[in-house]
Every structure is written in C-alpha cells, then in structure tokens.
C-alpha cells in the first residue's frame, strides 16, 4: 500500500476544485491572488484537519524532539533599559555625567540624540547577585530576583530597527516589510493549536503606567498566511470578548442553526471560488460559537483562590492591569492556546527615567515573576516558553533625564520550554553600548530560530510559498543559540 497515492473521491473533488479555481483565476488574470492559492493544496488538505475540523499544523510532526508546547511573550513595549535592569556596568557608572567616549558612537545611528552632546549615564539603582545561579538583577525588579534560578538572561540581544513601530514589526515577524506573518502565526501555521474552543493565538494589551506606547494589530498579523492564523486581541478591561452572549430572544439552538446555515452558504460559495478566506470565515464562525461558552468560563476567575490573586498582585479581575492579564494568560495557556502575547506599554523612558522605570517595573515585576512561579508549580514551565523583553534597549548615554532608543544591545529573559535556567547568555562592552562577538550574540533572527528550536522546529524548514518563493520567519538568517537549550 505504501508508496502509492490513494485518492478518495473527496480528494479528487478537492483536486478538481483546485484546478477549476486555478484556470479561471489565470484566465481572469488575477495572478497576484492566484499565487496565494498555490499553497492551498496543503491548507485545504482535509488530512491536516483534526477532530472538530481544527487545524493540526502543516508539519506532520516537529522536526526534532520538542520541549516547548506554548509561548507566552511578555512584550515590554517602548524598550526597557538594559543597563538599568539586567546588565550592570560599573565602568558606565563611574563615567556618569562625563562625555561618552566618541570611539563608541562615531558614525553610529542615533534616534533622538542626533547632534546633541553625548553624556554617559549610569544606573541609579543597584544590582544584586540572586539565587544559587548568582545572576545580576536590578533591585528595581525584586520579584524577578526571586526567579533568577528559573530564567536565562540574554544580554547580547540586538536588532536592526531604531523606531518603535518597525522595531515591533521586526521583533514579531523578523522583517519590517508589511505582509510578513508574526511569530505566533508561524507557530499556529506549523503546529496548530490544542485549544479547540479558544483562539490559538491571543493578544492582551495592558493598561496603566502612563505614556502608553502605540502598538498596532499589524504586530500580530498573519501576513500572507491565511488570516485564521492571526492573533486575536482580547479586551483587557471588562469581558475579554464583547457581545459573546446571545441577543434577547435567541437561544443557543437557534444560534447553532444560524451558524450551520451560514456555513452551508459559505460552502456553496467555496465550491465556486477557492478562496482560503472563506475557509477562515467558516472556522471563525465555528470558533466564535464555541467561545460563547468558553470565554465566560475563561474570564471567570472566581475559582482562583485569594492566594493566587495575591501572588500575581491582581486587585480586581478584568481591570486591564498587567497582573490581571498575566493571570488570564496562564488560564489561556492551561486551556491549550499556543501563543499568548501580553503588551505592557510603559517603557519608552526618554525623560524622567528614574521615576518612570520604577513605575513600569512595579507594574510588571510581580506578575511576571508570579507567572513563572505559577507555571512552575503546575508543572507547565517544562513545556511553556516565557519570553520577557522589549523591541530594543535604551542608550547608555543620557537624554536629558532619560535615555534614547538603542539597537546595539538590549536584554531579554527567557524561561521554561527547554531553555536552560539560571544562566546569563552573551555580554556587552564595558559601557553596555554593543553586544560582544563572543559566539553568544543574539540577533532577533537568532531569537526566533531558538524559539522554534524549543518547539522541535528547524527554522529553515518551516516555510510558506508566496509570490514565487519560500518564506520563513527567519528569512535567510538565524542561528539557534544551542548554549541556552537545556
């Protein structure tokens, strides 16, 4: 039997549909759209659809034995200062207030500091060796200090984009070009989601901290992938999803009938024109129907004991705080979501750094640490990858009372999901200006490659053919940082 392709009538019909759509589109000259359907062979293959029609992922199985099953990305939008939080620089502190050595900055790209006098700015708050691993973490993050032995601090991060929007695009999709899928979309495309009643890719945007950074839905876009792989943004204040209840007079069975009828009509349309967006629409209707019960259950944190709320520092459920979102993120991860992204938007400290960084740290520190601890005690840290960090860092040079954007070095930390705990990876020069080429440098592409490696995915093999060539999250770059894999 093996080695021969057995076609069922269903397969043949799919093939005919495919060919019909192809020839008509070619005839009509809608070539750009038609190329998008090239990949449909795999998208529409019913073999890839699981039990309830859920997407099982384009990969039959991971390339290697996987460690991670889920990611929670705690995105510190604005760019936290690495020299104040995770990368202590005694030399910089000594130079505080003096001119920044020109040898470092000559000919370098600067954001808002262009043309101004560059003065070194040391860290105001001290650092401390933490845990058995002895990692250096600022006293600004007392709770993060308690999980030092569970996290891997990467000090050699660097990126290519010096302004927020492109830098976020770069961090999420590995490119600033529009239409490139975000990392969460790639993961959903590759592996599918285990959550049958909730979106596999959820975005939560937190409030509080002032100076909210603008972020855009482009950051969780599916790009050229079918849009069912895009991130779904939940409301952070009040109910996560609006209008999930039925209108007055509509019962659940009526609702079911409506959904079924819409699906039937969409199916008719799909027989005539093969458009992946119809497929997306059908699955979104189905998911939305399931979410009518699953979302209220998800958001109902009355079953969480007070001690759990205290651990995260949640004052009130659904208050839009980072803490409440961390708790919600854990509940999403428990229910099988593949990728949860949390944004905190208070990290763009061009001025009043000393007070602002305290405010921002206070808002995220406890809940971030609590999330790691909570995942750990539930045994979920084994297969949940936690990534904490911004889209870039901040200059070791002062900008008035703050710091400017900085792309040559910044710090992130990762935990769980196959990342070796209690270690620091990579380093920067004496002033925290640039990552060192010591074999431990970590470009954003390298971060992506390493993240995929935790899932057992070879970043060079997860591709999608679009506009005539195979695209991947790391494009033509990326090295896996094997040294931080457990």
């Amino acid at each position, binding site marked *: 039997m093996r080695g021969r392709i057995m076609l069922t009538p269903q397969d043949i019909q799919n093939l005919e549909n495919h060919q019909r759509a192809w020839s008509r589109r070619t005839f009509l000259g809608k070539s750009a759209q038609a190329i998008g359907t090239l990949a449909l062979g795999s998208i529409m293959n019913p073999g890839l659809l699981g039990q309830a029609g859920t997407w099982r992922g384009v990969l*039959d*199985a*991971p*390339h290697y034995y996987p460690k991670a099953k889920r990611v929670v990305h705690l995105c510190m939008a604005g760019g936290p200062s690495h020299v104040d939080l995770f990368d202590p620089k005694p030399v910089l502190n000594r130079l505080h207030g003096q001119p920044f050595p020109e040898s470092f900055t000559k000919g370098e790209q600067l954001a808002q500091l262009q043309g101004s006098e560059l003065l070194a700015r040391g860290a105001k708050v001290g650092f401390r060796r933490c845990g058995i691993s002895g990692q250096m973490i600022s006293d600004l993050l007392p709770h993060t200090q308690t999980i030092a032995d569970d996290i891997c601090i990467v000090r050699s991060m660097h990126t290519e984009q010096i302004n927020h929007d492109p830098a976020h695009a770069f961090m999420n999709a590995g490119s600033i070009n529009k239409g490139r899928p975000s990392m969460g979309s790639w993961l959903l495309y590759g592996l599918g989601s*285990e959550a049958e009643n909730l979106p596999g890719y959820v975005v939560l945007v937190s409030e509080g901290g002032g100076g909210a950074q603008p972020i855009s839905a482009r950051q969780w876009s599916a790009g050229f992938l079918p849009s069912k792989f895009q991130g779904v943004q939940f409301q952070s204040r009040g109910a996560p999803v609006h209008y999930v209840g039925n209108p007055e007079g509509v019962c659940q069975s009526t609702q079911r009938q409506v959904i079924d009828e819409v699906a039937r009509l969409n199916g008719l349309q799909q027989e005539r024109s093969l458009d992946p967006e119809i497929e997306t629409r059908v699955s979104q209707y189905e998911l939305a129907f399931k979410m009518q019960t699953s979302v209220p259950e998800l958001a109902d944190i009355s079953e969480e004991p007070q001690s759990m709320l205290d651990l995260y520092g949640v004052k009130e459920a659904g208050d839009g705080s980072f803490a409440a979102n961390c708790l919600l993120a854990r509940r999403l991860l428990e229910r099988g979501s593949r990728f949860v992204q949390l944004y905190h938007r208070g990290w763009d400290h061009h001025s009043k750094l000393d007070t602002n960084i305290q405010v921002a740290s206070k808002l995220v520190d406890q809940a971030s640490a609590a999330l790691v601890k909570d995942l750990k*005690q*539930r045994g979920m840290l*084994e297969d949940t990858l936690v990534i904490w960090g911004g889209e870039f860092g901040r200059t070791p040079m002062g900008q008035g009372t703050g710091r400017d954007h900085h792309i040559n070095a910044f710090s992130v930390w990762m935990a769980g999901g196959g990342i070796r705990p209690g270690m620091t990876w990579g380093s920067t020069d004496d002033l925290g200006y640039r990552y060192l080429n010591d074999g431990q440098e970590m470009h954003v592409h390298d971060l992506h490659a390493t993240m995929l490696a935790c899932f*057992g995915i070879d970043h060079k093999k997860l591709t999608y053919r679009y506009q005539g060539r195979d695209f991947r999250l790391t494009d033509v770059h990326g090295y896996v940082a094997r040294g931080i894999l457990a």
Partner: protein
Amino acid sequence: MSDLMEFVGRLHPLVVHVPIGGLFLLVGAEVAGAWREKLKLSDGARLVVVSMAVAGAIVAVGCGWLRGENGSYDETLLDRHRILGFVTLGFTVLLLLLRRRKRVYKFALGLTVVALTLTGHNGGSLTHGRDYLTAPLAAWLGGESDDAGPQALAEVMVFEHVIQPSLHAKCVSCHGETKSEGDLRLDSFAAIMAGGATGPAIVVGDPTESLLLQRLYLPMGDKKHMPPAGRPQPTESEVALWEWWISRGAAEAGRLVELIPDPEILAAVAAQLGLPLPLEPDREEMLAAAREIESELGVGVRALAVAGPWLTVNARLAGEAFGDEQLKRLGPIAGAIHRLDMGGTSVTDVGLAALAEMTELRQLRLDRTAVSDAGLSRFAGLVRLESLNLHSTAITDAGVASLGELPKLRRLYVWQTAVTREATQALAAALENRRKLSRYQSELRTLEDRISAETFQPDFGYEDPVVIEEEKPGDGDG
C-alpha cells in the same frame, strides 16, 4: 640469531609434510605391491623413500623443538606433541634399518603411521585449539546445540553473547588455552582483565587506552597489528561493539538493555546475533492506531518528531470524559507513548494498572485527578519516567516514599497536596542513593572480577624479572 632461530622454528609446519608424504607414499606402495606383483616396490626405491622420510622427520623435529621453545603453548599438549614426534622419528629410523625384514617392517610401518597421525593431530590442536577438529563434528552430530542463545534483544547479555563470541572467533586461536601468545588469553572474562606480558588488555571505560584495541587500530602493515596480517580481521561493527562495551564499564554481567544502547549499537548487536530489532514500535502502525484512538476518545495524539514512533497523548482535552475505560483503550499505542497528560481527567487508582504497558513513558501528568497513594504503587515498571505531575491530588508522604523505585525520576510536582518537604527531600536522597548504589555495584563487580582474575604468582625477587616480550604472530598454517 634468535630471529634466525625463530624463522627456522616457523618452518616446522612446512617441513613436517615431507615425512608425512613419504610415509603415506610408502604405505600406498606397499599395499599396492601386496596386491599386484608388478607394482611391488624395488629395494632401491624403498630406500630412497624411507631415507627421505627419515631426513624430513629429523629436520621437522629440529624445527619443531625451536618452535616449541619460542611459542607460548599449553605445556602438557606441547610435551605430548614432542614425545610423539620423537617416537615417530624413532619408528621412521627403525623402518630404515628393518626394511629388508618383511614381517617386522610391515608391522613397524603400521605403528609409524599410527604415531604420525597422533602427532599430527596433536600439533593441529596446539595451533588451532583442542576442539578445532571435533567441534563442527559434534555440532553436526548433535544437531542444534542445547544453549540456543538469546531469542530476543531483551535477553542479550553483553559480554556472554556479544563480546565473548567475537573474541573467540577472531582472537582465541592464538590467545587461548592451548596457545597463549604474549601470555595473553582472551578466552574468559577473568583472563581478559588479567591481561598479558605487555599489560592489561583493556582499560575499563577507556577504549583508546586499551591495548586490545590499540593493537587493532595499528595499520595492517605494522608488525604489531593484531590479529596478524592474513588472519581473519574483526569487522567494523565488532570493533564498534568492543569499543562500546569497554567505554560502558566492561562488565561481565549486565544486560544489553540496561546499558541503554544507541540505535547503532542495537542494530550491530541484532545483526551479529541474527535477531530482529523489535525494540521500537512501527511508526506507521502507531500513527494509524493513534488516528483511530483520537477520533474515538476525543484526545489529542501526536507524533513527537518526524522520526521514530514516539507519541505524546493529551487526554486533558477530553476532560472528565476520559476515565479508566478510555485509558485502557490506549493499549494499542501503549508501547510508543513518551508523554501522557491526564490532568483533570477522571482516571482512578484502579485504572492506572494500564500504565504497566507504557514502559517508554517519560512524562506523566495526573494533576487534579482522584489518584491517591494506592495508585502510585502501579508505577513500578516506569523505569524511564523523568517527570511526574501529581499536583492537587490526594497523595501523601507515604505515596511519595514509594516513588524511590523510579530510577530516572527527576521532576515531581506535588503542589497543593499533603506531601511535606521532608518527604520530597527523603525521596530525592533515596533516588540519589539508588543511583550511587547502582554505580558502586557496577564498580564493585568490576573489582571483584579483577581480583578473581589475579592468578597466584610466586615472587622470586629480582632474579626473575618480568620479561616484556613482543607479540608474536601465530602460525599461518599447520
């Protein structure tokens, strides 16, 4: 000079065939002469043949004596061979003297041939080992031998079934009981450990430091290369197995599966013993069964990687609908499950009996279930279990204590249970002790083997120094 002696000595197997040929020619001619008058041997011809046999026998005895002085042979066999050799020579000389006295001559010729045959067989035994000639005959007569050997890889003992047979086939003819070149014998574990004149044959744990392999690694042209050029050489996979065995502690006792061999090693062993490789379930079969189970039970079953049959099962998806009955239905894929998540399901202690088949299980999640201490007693067979999640269950310290039998356990989650810190610390200590104990036990076994391998050697002081000899290649024929 001694090299010349050595050379002359090695001519023995060649020269012995001169008297053998002469004597058998004589027998043939005499028998033919008794049958037909015209075939009768003339006196002159008889004199020539008998003289040749005598001359050959004298040279052969001389060469043989030198060979016996220089080679390392079994003393009793060698003595017997020498006596028989002289007896044969004596009879041959007697033939020369008595060739005219018909009746005595015929009788003497018969005796000479008997002595010659005995001597020849004895010489063969010296070179090839005692049972060289008779072993195949015995096997043929006896049909299948009583000891059928291992029937499956799970039964294979590394030294007994893998290492020893290949050493026997490739080394023991020169390094055995009857002939032990360089005072080295490789026909028993104790002898291997004791080593030879140049030192121990193997260094436990270090293949590259082991003389046995160092000699093998030498280029074929090197005169110290073993086995000598022209002798059957061990195959690549045999060498790989020897290396692996030495690097894994070179123990005499020990099952193959206990050493958790790499797939290549397993394949090599299976090929050598002609056994099937049944250790891995078939991927396609498992995936087909998995599809069926998925649709039947509403659980998620996925392959862990593109290669290998290993599966991860997510029963959490089915929630309370997944219970003891459903767990039993995982039977067809039980041997392929690496990770099993039954968190929040309705499995009970009784149902966990089904875990006995899941010998490959690495990660098991039973959090928020009705499992209690009684269920943990079912875990005894999970020798590969590394991670066990029991948070929010009814387990107690007593249950945790019973987990000390899981050799690979590294992570245990007992959040929101009655388990105390003392109990988990005791478990950690017990597991560590267990690992230490098994390490010590294997070291102890090695030491005991070495002690038993030490033979009694009286010390005569400096007058009898240890002679470090070069290895001598054995005979090429004979």
